[in-house]
Every structure is written in C-alpha cells, then in structure tokens.
C-alpha cells in the first residue's frame, strides 16, 4: 500500500496517509517516510488516549487519494463511528478514492472456516459487501515460511508478542490454509469483476464515475436463497454460509423468522433478543429480512418460499435429540416433506475433527 502511495506520488498524484499501523515494524516505518500523514485524532477512553484516523481532517485536506491501513479495525468507544470501514465509507462518499488493506480472516463470510482450521474466532469482521464494492483487489502474497522468518527476525512484532503469535495465528498449517483461502478469495474477486465487466459491455455502462459499478447484473441472478432464522446460536454460521453461496452463485438472499405467537413481541425476551440479533446480523450483511407469523413454522416457511420464487432454502441441522421418525418430525423433516419443488440445503456445523 505504501509502495503504491510512493508510486502515485511520483506520478504527481496528491496522496496522503489517513492511517497506517506501523506495529513498530522498521521496514514499514521507513516506507512511510516521504508521504504526508494526516495527524491522528486522540480519543480518550478509560484514562488512556487512543489514536484513530481523523476522518474530518482528511475530508478537510481533500487529497486525491487517501491510504488507510487495516480496514477491519474497530474504533475505540467514543469515536464518531464504530468501524474504520465506516470512516472509509465517508471518505468514498465525499469522492476521495481510498487504497486500503485487509487480512483475509477478517472477512465475515470466512469466519467459520477460519475458526475451523485455526481454532481462533476472529471478532473484528467486515461485511463482504464492503469489499465487493472495491474497484480493484490486489493479492499480497508471501509464502508462510518467509512470513515465519520475518516474524522470528522480529520484523512483524516485538519479541514478546512474536512468541505468542507463533503459537496462535502464525502456526504453519494455519498460515498455509489462510494463504490458500486468500488466493481463492482473490480469484473469486477477479472473477466477479470480470463478469461485471462483460455485463457492462453487453448492457452498456451501468453507472458513471461517481459510484462503484454494480458487481451483479440482475439479469444473471436466477437463484433466490432463503435462510431460516432461529434462536439456535449456529444461525450466525448459517447466515454467513447463505450469504457466501449467494455471493458466489450469484443469487438474491433473504432471511425469515417464523414466530408462533400472534405478535413477535410476545415471545420470551431472551429468545426474542437472540432472534433480533440474528436478524440484525443478516441485515448488516445486506440480506433482506422478514418476520412471519404462523403456528406451523415449516408450512409458513415453505409457503413464503413458493410465493417469492425461492430456489433454495437454507436450514440448520437439528440437534441430535430432535431426530425422531415415530414421534412426529422435526422442522427440517417437515420442510423436506413439504417443499418437494425447492432445493433444500441443510448446513452442517463444520468443526475440525480432533487429531486422534
């Protein structure tokens, strides 16, 4: 990112650094030299002054291009916006192009996969649509062994932090898997932009210079995915999976919750809050959500799917105890019986099997 900043500056482009995270890395600090840095804003929190990007100052400075490190960063409480990507959104809305960086494990839709092979649940995530709107993606590749060498030389973290990192995210198998994931994600990003480009040539330019070109052309979208929301904690993974499949196919994506009570507000508070959290999460990933009322959840779900031309229903596997054939069927079995004309995807919780 900083190299590109220098290259742009050499071409006479007015570039500033909005935020960059030196992590005490010498190579990186050297690279920032010669580039204008917009001073950070100090945000006091619990007696300590934290530093965040000063978005207002960048707006006032009006550069031609702004460099912003670590897009998935969460701002300290008390900042104007919760997430750095929201600050970036403000810059983009003001017409300032942004060059930014992101580690693959911060992509929302990859959260479960990353946890499965690293054992680490990444909390700082970024909705995939934020990345989808990028005009260009560049893969920064480095073989894991080289990264490990850099780490051991102290080029990435201070020694005490490096030892800790080696045991967590920087295990070789995790790095190799993350690298493969990044390469495949980058290939996918290239792929969708290619499709958009082709579509634009067929249909004519869809938008002017002001906004990002839409990645999906509506004509190509034939699949419609419906995600069934429940209070089950695995629902978050189900939503991510549905979103990811919808992004890859591409397909439209909806999420519904069916409540038996005549009013959603009559649900037990704890359950209702969990469901609301899941619905909010879906909306953050730009999934259209609905609340449906119906005594028979399976029937209500399938009828909604038929009415809305849904081609695929995403459901969770029920807990083991819920399996029974003689004594009534679980919701999944009922949906499978009812929706004979619709594809049904039963999403598994993917957990790495422990080595024997």
């Amino acid at each position, binding site marked *: 990112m900083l190299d590109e900043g220098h290259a742009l500056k050499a071409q006479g482009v007015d570039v500033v650094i909005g935020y960059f995270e030196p992590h005490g890395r010498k190579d990186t600090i050297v690279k920032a030299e010669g580039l204008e840095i917009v001073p950070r804003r100090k945000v006091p929190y619990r007696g300590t002054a934290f530093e965040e990007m000063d978005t207002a100052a960048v707006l006032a400075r009006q550069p031609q291009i702004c460099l912003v490190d670590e897009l998935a960063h969460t701002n300290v409480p008390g900042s104007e916006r919760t997430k750095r990507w929201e600050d970036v959104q403000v810059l983009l809305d003001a017409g300032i192009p942004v060059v930014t960086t992101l580690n693959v494990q911060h992509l929302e839709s990859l959260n479960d996969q990353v946890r499965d092979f690293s054992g680490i649940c990444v909390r700082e995530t970024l909705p995939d649509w934020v990345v989808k709107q990028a005009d260009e993606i560049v893969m920064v590749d480095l*073989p894991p062994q080289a990264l490990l060498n850099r780490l051991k030389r102290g080029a990435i973290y201070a020694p005490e932090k490096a030892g800790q990192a080696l045991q967590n995210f920087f295990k*070789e198998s995790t790095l190799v898997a993350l*690298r493969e994931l990044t390469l495949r994600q980058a290939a996918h990003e290239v792929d969708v932009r290619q499709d958009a480009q082709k579509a634009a040539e067929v249909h004519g330019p869809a938008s002017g210079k002001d906004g990002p070109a839409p990645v999906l052309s509506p004509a190509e979208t034939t699949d419609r995915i419906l995600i069934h929301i429940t209070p089950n904690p695995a629902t978050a993974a189900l939503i991510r999976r549905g979103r990811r499949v919808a992004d890859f196919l591409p397909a439209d994506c909806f999420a519904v919750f069916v409540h038996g009570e005549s009013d959603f507000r009559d649900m037990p508070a704890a359950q209702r809050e969990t469901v609301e959290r899941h619905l909010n999460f879906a909306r953050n990933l730009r999934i259209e959500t609905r609340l449906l009322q119906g005594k028979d959840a399976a029937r209500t779900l399938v009828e909604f799917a038929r009415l809305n031309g849904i081609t695929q229903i995403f459901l969770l596997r029920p807990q083991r105890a819920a399996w029974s054939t*003689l004594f009534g069927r679980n919701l999944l079995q009922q949906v499978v019986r009812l929706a004979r004309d619709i594809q049904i995807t039963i999403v598994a919780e993917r957990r*790495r099997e422990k080595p024997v």
Partner: protein
Amino acid sequence: MAGDRRPDPEQLLRRVQAEEEQQRRGRLKVFLGYAGGVGKSFRMLDEGRRRRERGEDVVVGAVQANPTPEVQALLRRLEVIPLRKVAGVSVMDVEAILRRHPQVCLVDSLAYDNPPGSRNPKRWQDAEALLAAGVSVIATVNLQYIEEQREEVERITGKRATQTVPQSFLSTADEIEVVDAPPETALQRSSDAAESAAGSGSRAQQLSALREIALLLTAEVVDHQLEAYLRRQGLEQMWGPHERILLWITPHSQAAAIIASGRRNADRFHGELFAAYLSQPDLPPEKKAVLDENLALAREADAQIELLDAEDQVDAVIRFARAHGITQIFVKRHPQEHLWDRVVGSPLDRLIQAAEGIDVRVFPE
C-alpha cells in the same frame, strides 16, 4: 498406529538418501505472474537485495533485456554475472556461475529458449543444473509459458507461446509466490501493451482471465503443501479452504439438473466435483439405461466417478464422503416414498442425519 506402517530398512535407507540429496540441492523459489508488466523481475531482484543485505551471497544470473528504471536501480546494488553470447544470442553463463558458486542465483524468465550450441536447450534446465550443484535459485515465470497452461491461455488470448517450462519443474519449487497487480498496471508497464488484442474480449479482460488462472494455480500448489504438511504432522484431513462436492447418482430418475448444478457450484467455488453410484447388479434394463445416461452426463461434466460397493447405500455414501473430505452432498429426491420409509425414515432422512459436518443439498424430483 505408527507401528502398522513401519518401513523396511531398504525403504528407510532410500528415504535418508533422498533427504540428503534434498539437503544438498539448492532451494528453488519462483515468482509467478499472469502477464508481463506485473513486476516479477522487480520482486525477484528486491528479494535478492534484501538477502544480500542480510549477508547472503547473491548474484544475478540472468535478467530481462530493457529493464525498467526501478529494475536498473536494483541491478546496480547487486553483483551481475554477464550473459554469454552463443551464435550472437545472449544466454545465461552457467559455467561462470558454477565457478563463482554463490549461495543464491537470480534467474529471470525460466521459459527462455537457449540458442543451439548452448549447454542446455532451455533456461529452466540451466536453473536445474544450478540447483543440482547446490546453488539456490530465485526465478520468475509467466503463466503463459507454463507448458500445461498453454492451451487455456491460447483459448483466452488467441496466442500460443513457443517457449515453455513444464509444470513438473515448477512443482519442485520449495516456494511459489504469486505476483499480483491490477490489469491496468500490467497494461501500463507491459512491453506488449501496444499489441492489439487477439482472441476474444479486450486485452484488459484477457488479463483478468489470466490473473484468475494464476491465482487458482497457486492455490492448487498451496493446497498440496497443506495436505503434505497435515500428513507429516499426522493430522486428519480437515475441513479446509476448498469445496468438494459429491453428487449421489441413482438409477431412479434423470440427473441432468443436479449434475449441472454440481458443476456450476464446483466452478463457482473453484472446488472439486465427484459423482458416486452404488453397484446394483440386479437392476432392470430400463433403470440400468437411466443410470448409464446419468453417469455419461457426470463424466461429461468432468466429475470424478466412483463406484461404491456396500450393503447399505447411506453408509457407503457417508463413508466415501468422510474419506474424501467432501463438504457438500447433492442428492435428488426419490420419486416414490415407501410406506416403510415413514416408519424407519427414508434413506434421505438417514443421509441428512448421518452427514454430520457435511452440507446436504436436496434437489426436487
């Protein structure tokens, strides 16, 4: 567990010899780019510079003609072994490099054809000679020059490369690193930017297609590394970054839709496609015909076909899926449901129930 597979002494000796041989050999690192102008040479030389600054003995064996100013600046900070002229053509001076015997030699454009009368017909064979002599090599190659990728590249660009490197040589690399850049950058910097686009689509579109192939090719290499690593560590196949779709093919009904969907999903996720069916010797002819037709379709869709043999069909499918790291099973509904199924659960119910950790997608009849 380890006792089951204790190798005999002969095997052990061969393995030790192979390992020693491996240790004597130089290490090969390849920078792979999807086109000219993405900055491979720069990255190679920059790594050479960094290693030299860290005290490694690095020389430049070969570098492209007409270097960019950035590349020239790096070259000034490195020791360059001059190219040799053979029949009026410049070639890498392998003998001079071997005499000099550095720790690391930088070799640009592995796919270069040497003129007749040279030590080896191809530059990658020169690199092989350096590796065998214990010199580590850092090299560059363009996607279009990889023998096995040539056809695919030609389909996109309409042009066929004449100089190539076999993929088998690249797969001996200890490290492969993809050099990525947006197509616009490649267009600006590339010497062939002025060339009019042959084949289909604009040059930018072609570059974008090549870029995708280069990224996926590297992902494949990394996937093999991951598998090898897990095997060495005695870890089980894990649910990795790779989708593997299994189609369950039956003689009950036409499977065109499920096969097409399987192919599309495998393509979209850059995953693998398998199709499994069960051996059923007593199949009536009309069912046999349906099964054969389905299998022909699956073969056409480039699925790996597997014949399963087992008492219980659900068990067989699940066992195959587990053994092959399948992440999704695609299955079509049975046209008729038996009364008995309502009591003990249909095969579909049992499949869904048994497929813990694997997605199941049920297709309409």
